[in-house]
């Protein structure tokens, strides 16, 4: 028989405290009042004092509201019926199509045993040359997109969602503007990908606590598909909002902040989500891409800083393009030796020349004289930016490599490129 409690002692922030017995840590509770009802999670038990994090927020919650405990932690229904569905960050249906209740699985379980993981080894083509050629995305990788607010990070995420090969796309939105949510939904529908997608959307106007649940539910569902052998792509935006929600709760709980108000366990909290990225021996995998907006373009801000230590590289979005210098895919070496003989050489060669072009631009800006070589570099830089770096570039890997050769041939002699002569002999475009 379910027991009801009708006296809440303290309400502060999104946390309500009441006296109850026999309650498990992280157990789920239901709070009901005249304002409606909400799920809540136990975040501390101290004697018979139980602290609840109320998902819908405590606005309007009365000390006389009714609280009952469910006897289990957060669960979510898992089946193929999830495809095409949209849920809130807390896991409730957002598309007027009814709740799912069968095959409930526990949200946020233990970590995968490292001993059974496989090294990521398959490339994920995206048809974006800056990714495919220069910082290849690898199946099972966890990679954030570092971006200043205002950069087209959501477009980039949507493009990757549509163009990357994946059996299942799981989208987790945290603190999204409503029109951003609609943008993603339309892009997935237009692209015909909605029938293999599942969306978990927490918008900026939804309760903060649901923001914390979003990645956990999304990743739990992803894990279940991966166990079944599916190749899952998880897209999360924006992890900075998630971190800010963590900060809000921890300060309400009177935890001592460590750095700029963020809790001391920010690293572990982020890591336990990002580390869900995995490749299983049986073929299933989770690839995780997450937007991290950097307040004030400051990469030393605690959120991007901790993220950088966790993830396997980052795409750095700057000035509307994926910046070739700040960006890094740590796992690219696992795959780019197996694509085509010239892949690594083009990757290094083009970027080294582009770096020289940038140096030359600085020299020019300081008023130094431009040599013939300098002028060559400047022209090369323009072509490279226009044809390869631009967001509109949309070609497969081999075509992109060919384009790189064409640009090189347009501006340089083979020996000036620093690329090994046997590769130049083989790939240099014949005039």
């Amino acid at each position: 028989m379910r027991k009801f409690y009708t006296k809440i002692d303290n309400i502060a922030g999104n946390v309500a405290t009441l006296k109850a017995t026999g309650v498990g840590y992280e157990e789920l509770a239901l709070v009901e009042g005249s304002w409606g009802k909400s799920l809540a999670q136990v975040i501390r038990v101290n004697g018979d004092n139980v602290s609840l994090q109320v998902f819908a927020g405590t606005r309007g919650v009365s000390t006389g509201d009714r609280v009952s405990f469910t006897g289990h932690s957060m669960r979510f229904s898992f089946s193929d019926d999830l495809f095409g569905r949209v849920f809130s960050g807390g896991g409730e249906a957002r598309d007027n199509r009814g709740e799912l209740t069968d095959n409930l699985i526990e949200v946020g379980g233990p970590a995968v045993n490292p001993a059974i993981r496989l090294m990521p080894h398959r490339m994920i083509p995206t048809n974006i040359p800056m990714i495919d050629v220069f910082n290849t995305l690898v199946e099972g990788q966890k990679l954030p997109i570092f971006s200043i607010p205002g950069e087209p990070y959501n477009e980039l995420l949507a493009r990757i969602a549509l163009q990357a090969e994946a059996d299942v796309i799981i989208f987790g939105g945290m603190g999204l503007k409503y029109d951003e949510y609609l943008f993603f939904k339309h892009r997935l529908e237009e692209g015909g990908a909605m029938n293999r997608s599942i969306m978990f959307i927490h918008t900026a106007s939804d309760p903060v606590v649901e923001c914390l649940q979003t990645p956990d539910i999304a990743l739990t569902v992803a894990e279940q598909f991966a166990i079944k052998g599916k190749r899952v792509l998880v897209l999360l935006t924006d992890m900075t909002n998630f971190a800010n929600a963590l900060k809000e709760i921890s300060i309400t709980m009177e935890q001592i902040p460590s750095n700029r108000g963020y809790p001391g366990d920010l690293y572990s909290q982020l890591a336990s989500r990002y580390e869900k990225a995995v490749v299983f021996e049986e073929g299933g995998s989770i690839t995780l891409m997450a937007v991290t907006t950097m307040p004030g373009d400051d990469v030393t801000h605690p959120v991007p800083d901790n993220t950088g230590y966790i993830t396997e590289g980052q795409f750095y979005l700057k000035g509307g393009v994926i910046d070739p210098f700040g960006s890094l895919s740590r796992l690219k070496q696992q795959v780019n030796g197996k694509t085509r003989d010239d892949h690594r050489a083009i990757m290094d060669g083009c970027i080294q020349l582009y770096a020289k072009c940038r140096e030359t631009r600085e020299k020019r800006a300081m008023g130094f004289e431009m040599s013939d070589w300098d002028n060559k570099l400047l022209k090369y830089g323009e072509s490279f930016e226009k044809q390869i770096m631009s967001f509109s570039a949309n070609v497969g890997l081999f075509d992109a490599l060919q384009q790189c050769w064409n640009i090189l041939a347009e501006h340089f002699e083979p020996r000036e490129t620093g690329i090994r002569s046997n590769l130049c002999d083989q790939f240099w475009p014949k005039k």
Partner: protein
Amino acid sequence: MSSTGRIVTVYGNMVTAEVEGTVRQNAVAYCQRSDGVRLMSEIIRIRGKLADMQVFELTRGLKVGDPVEITEELLSLELGPGLIGMVYDGLQNPLPEMAAQVGKFLEPGHYLKALDRKRDWDFDPLLAPGAIVTAAENLGKVKENIFDHFIMAPFTLNGEWKVKSIAPAGKYKVDKEIAVLEKDGQTVSVNMIQRWPVRIPLGIYRERLLPTQTMVTKQRIIDTFFPIMLGGTYCIPGPFGAGKTVLQQITSRHAEIDLVIVAACGERAGEVVETLREFPHLKDPRTGKTLIERTIIICNTSSMPVAARESSVYTAITLGEYYRQVGLNVLLLADSTSRWAQALREMSGRLEEIPGEEAFPAYLESSIARFYERGGIVELKDGRKASLTVGGTVSPAGGNFEEPVTQGTLKVVGAFLGLSYARSYARRFPAIDPLESWSKYAGVIAHEKVAWAHGFLKRGKSIYEMMQVVGEEGTSIDDFIIYLKSEFLDNVYLQQNSFDEVDAACPVDRQQHLFEMVTGVLKHKFEITDKARARDLFFTLTEQFRDWNYSPWLSDQMKTAESAIKATMSSKEAAHA
């Protein structure tokens, strides 16, 4: 006699219990969930009847009133033959075995024996009945891979004991009695397993010695410029993306050492997987065996419970101390000590201790110091020398070395290999900053020679900075050549290509030979007056030295490269006036 208690508070991974009976600080306790699952914990604070515990598992589902069983034993390891080649979590559970028994996920409440009870070991007794032994003296030995693994008298033994009986040579399992010792009518039965608490340093030896022998890593920038010694300590701080882990991996592959213990503490699982999957297939050039046969992996990655992360570095160092006791030269690579410090911080916050800088606990520095001090070279009771070298990476927030963990570490280590983002960005690997790093140890090349060469790096840097303001045309040719020489030294000596089969590992004689050749160029007085031609000459030299670096030792290819260098150096361009 163990005590029992009941849970009164659950908050994150901290649980408080009300206890009947006596409680020991740092004793192991088990919290029992209502479904019967027992979660391993450690007592970390006692206040009257209340005992605060850190739980090594997810605490989800624990309730007020759930029973707690408190043992007498401190958090301890199982030590004995069969540890090498294993992959353990922070509590010494073998992970592959765990996967076989429990499945893909690390479900809470499963604890396995660290040593294989089924394996037979060829035991050779070294003593006869009647012999007198004290703690840690050798009773016999077994062969573990290529090593003599000495089976010692219990570390906890007090005073002199007489060997009452000892097993004859033959095959024994680790938990089988191999000797009986007696003293004053008391007897103890000895098998191959010893237990030792992780938080107490294990060191039973005649005396601790000063490190005097360079530990060769085959990385030129380390062995020549910032060397490490057997029994020494060093740290590698660096921002993310600067190559800390890569440097640790290179060291674990190439270091001239008997045994490497890799402690992946709060880092990516992927990095461990790389070691795990590759080491069984990579050859150790010194022994011809695979690298996994000289490696122990302690793996508590970032998504595994944080309290076990805190204990994992102690697990690793205790294993290191044990094999030092056995008589080996051991290298412990801890990646990363910052994650360990963060685990300390998390617990300290939950305990509501008054925070120090950046919310780290006030005892952070002394904890770091105690950890590194457990390394060292010693003379064992039988006169053999054995060492434990400790290298830890530090991941400073925002890449800022002023933060407490980096600063606390710098005070206690003998060498500091600071990685810089600028060098990694410029693809200069290993990205150790030659102007910020230091070492108090002696390397493979005489100190004065190294200091002289290092001078070029300093002058080259200041000339380069000046050149940014006045341009090349405003720089004198003498300064310009010093700058070119410093770049040359950087390119051909400090940098090393870890992807090239030959260049990845540069042995001592090769380093000494190359250093002489590079010194020759640095000393040479170039009389060129045209900057473009000077730059061109150094481009040529750099390329030729790189070819030399890529040529196998004493091969024809190397001789060709060497004569090309000689030709360039004696050419008209490079000639004396």
